[in-house]
């Protein structure tokens, strides 16, 4: 044991520089895993851990209509029988426009208005930014407590007045943190007013409001929620408990965390490839030392233990360094992204995540160096007498097969552990193996084709191609490693550009600059005239009827079913539906037929294809809508595809004319022409003075923040992609180190024969140029295939080939390989040949 420990110490002392890449590969991989996992865990903690406080209650009953008397009676009956309800209150919320009462101040802003009544909140605390607890008298006589960003956005202060709908409110308090938290997407800052003030401002007549009855219970409310759902079956009233919300939130975060962890694992596995390469190079360089040790009487097992221990120590130190890197990464994230991340977000690496990272790093180090280390057994001491080509070294014997299988099993276990799912873990590993095998096969094919042109071209060219075939060459390994790096980065980039193209509605040329909703029929003429005058464009006006889906094929949704409940947000919400004769330019029919001209005998509806899939309907099926309490059953006439990249409005349901004309409806108007921000503000301001019920979306303004969001998203992905590329570069450096001694010897011979340094430099550039070009081409071809498959079959989005990204990808890969190759081999050019030749 003493021999093992002391030799391990001495070997580390002498070889640490050579193993620096090993160390970096592991540090980078562990850093990625730990940083990504910490980031998402901290985010989870910051936004969504306490669903009860988010809901401000134990459970809630909500609707976007008024509660129907029969529903209230059913609720009353169930609640009356329950003994666990401690307290209840009602809230009413709506997204509405707010503007300062001061006529000189032209600003307007969307706000999320919440009308509350005591006791509020049922769960959690509510204090103002000056530390005072919230008190209901603050809201008396049209008082309002508002979020700080509204004060800043409108340029007003406490004591000033704002107008919302037909009401005028005095600001009595400011809040930094509201009960119910600040997670999720918000249209605007929060404004708290008295519940009855929402009515008196006329907002319940026009705006989209959601009414909630909230309850605090003394015990688990699950049973009560089930009873309520049973009682309310067939009604559009929704019942939800904080426990379910917690469940969904946790599930979403865990899924995101595991997917991110897999991205980290990918970087770590690439780092593992680097480790494998370095370990191979290391064992190769240590052949003589190993032979000497064997000659002096050391067993293979002892030598294996010495080098295994060395790998363990380096893996451990590298992993610890990786944790430090992760912490630095988190600080960088804080510095760059703090403004878009939750205020409560922390930026520390958690202990358990750190330990997990270190364990992963050490295990990956040992796994990936296992096969190279097993070569130690095949090194014979006789090579000290005659260094023959040890042909058995590369052969796969039974032990290596066994070790290989063990490594694959361990990798599978790690992937499953990191993904939190056997299926995803297995898909990850199988995908990686298939990709690697295909890349290796492509590399083998390309190099064998290149071999045919070995004799062609100048001396420099011939020599550089010959270098790719020198004994013990690492050409295929470099092609595999760099190709894999290029593949991952480019596949991410190509997929990302397709995702952004799909979702970036800022590119939509038909996107309106201003969008007006909740226009009453009697207001249309005056409002359109006013807009035309100011903007110079007649707005397009579309009727909009508010409807909810009540039944599909006469069956109500079963909200007891978790899967259905998960879709509740999409299918249970209120839809704005319209009716028209013609198909829009950006629409196409996937199934069934569009109606032409004549009115049908029965109501007919066209359903957008994604919604049709969710509802599992096809032409001929029926969907029953609840329109202001009236049930209208419509036959699905066709399934319609919407091109969201080229759309002015996007209706999920479009009725055939003849059904909805008499239903209660409002109108939406839009203009495309872009005007200056101050003009838009003045127009909004004037319109709201005249038509306080109308809601205005300043799309141009919203786009600015969306663009910033997308930019941050791109930056984050590029950041992860950069780590992948860095791993690829480390692998490349490791591979170069493998063949360096041969390169040094060849250069010494060529110099002796009269080759000048410039010529040797050119050979070097041409050699790495070939390798980089081939790796870039192979990686890019695979990346194109992968991005196509992911876009079309996984994300279900349109795929477009981006030749510029592909060409730039190949060029950058080539450049990186040449630069890194030159940097790693540069000293070779300056070595004196005599020393080299004497040494060998």
């Amino acid at each position: 044991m003493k021999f093992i420990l002391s030799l391990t110490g001495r070997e580390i002392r002498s070889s640490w520089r050579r193993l620096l890449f090993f160390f970096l590969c592991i540090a980078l991989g562990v850093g990625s895993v730990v940083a990504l996992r910490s980031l998402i865990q901290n985010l989870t903690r910051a936004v969504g851990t306490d669903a009860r406080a988010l809901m401000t209650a134990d459970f809630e009953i909500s609707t976007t209509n008024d509660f129907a008397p029969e529903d209230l009676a059913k609720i009353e009956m169930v609640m009356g029988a329950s003994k666990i309800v401690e307290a209840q209150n009602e809230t009413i919320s709506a997204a509405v426009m707010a503007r300062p009462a001061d006529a000189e101040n032209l600003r307007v802003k969307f706000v999320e208005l919440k009308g509350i009544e005591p006791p509020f909140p049922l769960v959690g605390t509510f204090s103002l930014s000056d530390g005072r607890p919230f008190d209901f008298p603050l809201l008396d006589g049209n008082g309002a407590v508002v979020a700080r960003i509204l004060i800043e956005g409108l340029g007003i202060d406490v004591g000033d007045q704002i107008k919302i709908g037909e009401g005028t409110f005095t600001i009595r308090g400011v809040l930094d943190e509201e009960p119910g938290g600040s997670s999720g997407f918000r249209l605007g800052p929060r404004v708290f007013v008295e519940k009855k003030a929402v009515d008196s401002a006329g907002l319940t007549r026009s705006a989209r409001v959601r009414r909630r009855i909230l309850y605090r219970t003394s015990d688990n409310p699950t049973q009560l929620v089930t009873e309520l759902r049973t009682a309310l079956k067939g009604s559009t009233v929704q019942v939800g408990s904080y426990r379910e919300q917690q469940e969904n939130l946790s599930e979403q975060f865990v899924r995101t965390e595991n997917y991110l962890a897999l991205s980290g694992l990918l970087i770590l596995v690439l780092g593992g490839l680097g480790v494998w390469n370095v370990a191979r190079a290391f064992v190769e360089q240590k052949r003589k030392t190993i032979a000497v040790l064997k000659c002096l009487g050391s067993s293979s097992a002892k030598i294996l233990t010495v080098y295994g221990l060395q790998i363990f120590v380096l893996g451990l130190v590298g992993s610890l360094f990786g944790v430090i890197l992760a912490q630095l990464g988190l600080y960088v994230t804080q510095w760059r992204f703090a403004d878009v991340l939750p205020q409560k977000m922390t930026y520390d690496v958690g202990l358990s995540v750190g330990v997990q990272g270190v364990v992963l790093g050490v295990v990956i180090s040992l796994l990936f160096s296992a096969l190279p280390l097993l070569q130690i057994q095949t090194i014979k001491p006789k090579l000290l007498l005659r260094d023959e080509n040890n042909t058995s070294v590369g052969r796969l014997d039974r032990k290596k097969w066994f070790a290989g299988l063990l490594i694959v099993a361990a990798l599978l276990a790690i992937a499953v552990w990191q993904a939190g799912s056997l299926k995803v873990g297995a898909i990850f590993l199988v995908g990686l193996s298939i990709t690697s095998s295909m890349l290796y096969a492509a590399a083998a094919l390309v190099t064998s084709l290149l071999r045919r042109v070995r004799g062609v071209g100048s001396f420099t060219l011939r020599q550089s191609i010959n270098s790719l075939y020198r004994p013990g060459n690492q050409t295929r390994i470099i092609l595999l490693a760099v190709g894999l790096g290029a593949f991952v980065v480019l596949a991410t980039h190509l997929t990302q550009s397709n995702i952004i193209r799909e979702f970036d509605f800022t590119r939509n040329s038909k996107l309106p600059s201003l969008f007006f909703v909740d226009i009453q029929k009697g207001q249309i003429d005056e409002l359109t005239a006013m807009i035309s005058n100011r903007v110079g464009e007649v707005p397009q006006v579309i009727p909009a009827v508010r409807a909810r889906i009540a039944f599909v094929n006469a069956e109500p949704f079963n909200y007891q079913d978790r899967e259905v409940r998960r879709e509740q947000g999409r299918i249970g919400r209120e839809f704005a539906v319209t009716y028209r004769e013609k198909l829009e330019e950006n629409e196409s029919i996937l199934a069934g037929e569009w109606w032409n001209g004549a009115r049908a005998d029965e109501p007919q509806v066209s359903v957008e294809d994604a919604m049709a899939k969710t509802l599992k309907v096809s032409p001929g099926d029926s969907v029953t809508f609840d329109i202001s309490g009236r049930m209208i059953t419509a036959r699905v006439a066709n399934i319609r595809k919407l091109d969201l990249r080229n759309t002015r409005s996007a209706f999920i349901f479009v009725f055939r004319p003849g059904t909805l004309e008499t239903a209660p409806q409002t109108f939406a108007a839009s203009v495309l022409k872009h005007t200056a921000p101050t003009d838009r503000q003045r127009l909004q301001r004037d319109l709201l003075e005249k038509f306080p019920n109308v809601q205005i979306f300043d799309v141009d303004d919203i786009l600015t923040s969306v663009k910033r969001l997308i930019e941050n998203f791109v930056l984050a992905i590029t950041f992860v992609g950069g780590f992948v590329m860095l791993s690829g570069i480390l692998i490349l450096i490791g591979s170069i180190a493998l063949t360096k001694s041969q390169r040094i010897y060849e250069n010494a011979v060529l110099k002796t024969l009269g080759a000048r340094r410039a010529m040797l430099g050119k050979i070097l550039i041409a050699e790495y140029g070939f390798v980089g070009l081939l790796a870039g081409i192979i990686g890019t071809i695979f990346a194109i295939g992968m991005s196509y498959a992911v876009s079309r079959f996984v994300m279900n989005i349109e795929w477009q080939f981006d030749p510029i990204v592909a060409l730039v990808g190949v060029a950058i890969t080539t450049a990186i390989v040449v630069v890194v190759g030159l940097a790693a081999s540069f000293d070779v050019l300056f070595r004196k040949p005599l020393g080299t030749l004497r040494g060998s």
Partner: protein
Amino acid sequence: MIELRSLTKTVRSGADDLTILSDVSASIPGGQFVAITGASGSGKSTLLGLIAGLDAPSSGDIFVDGARITAMSEDELAEMRAKKIGFVFQSFHLIPSLTAYENILIPMEILGAPNAGDRAKYLLETVDLASRGHHYPAELSGGEQQRVAIARAFANSPKFLLADEPTGNLDSRNGQHIFELMQNLHSQNNVTLVLVTHDLNLAEQAQRQITLVDGRVSRDTEATR
């Protein structure tokens, strides 16, 4: 005692088999100084490697100190070498990452020998390198490296010292010094010394000379003095 019985060693050379040693038999009694001579390619080094268990013969048997080493596994051979055999190479084969002192320490550490440090220092003094123990092989001259290699070979007080052209890479003065050192250690410790050399002057100083020609023993003579 080393006993070689009908040793043959054949290797693949391209498509053909190349016989390096053919039916070599010999018996070397304990404490004897034997020189193996012959032209380049005659099989001298191969024979020495087979005696040390660094390689296996294609046929025949080798007995070292009564043990049939041709039946031993790799690890058994390694243990046998650690305990009984010291080997000196023409190109020294010191571990470049270890100092001279540490190189000498290694065989003792492999065996877990007590007082290894003291013995390593003693051996360094024996080979006149007491002040160079902390130097790495690259910082030593060829002669000095070979002296370290000899000290290393004697670390575990082996019964057999096998030396493969130990002076081949040295000038005549250093070569003579090394040879004398080995001779002294041989006589002081009563080890069996098998020296492979093509230097006939050195060979003549051995108690016995075995000459190989094309892998066969062509002459086996004992010195009369």
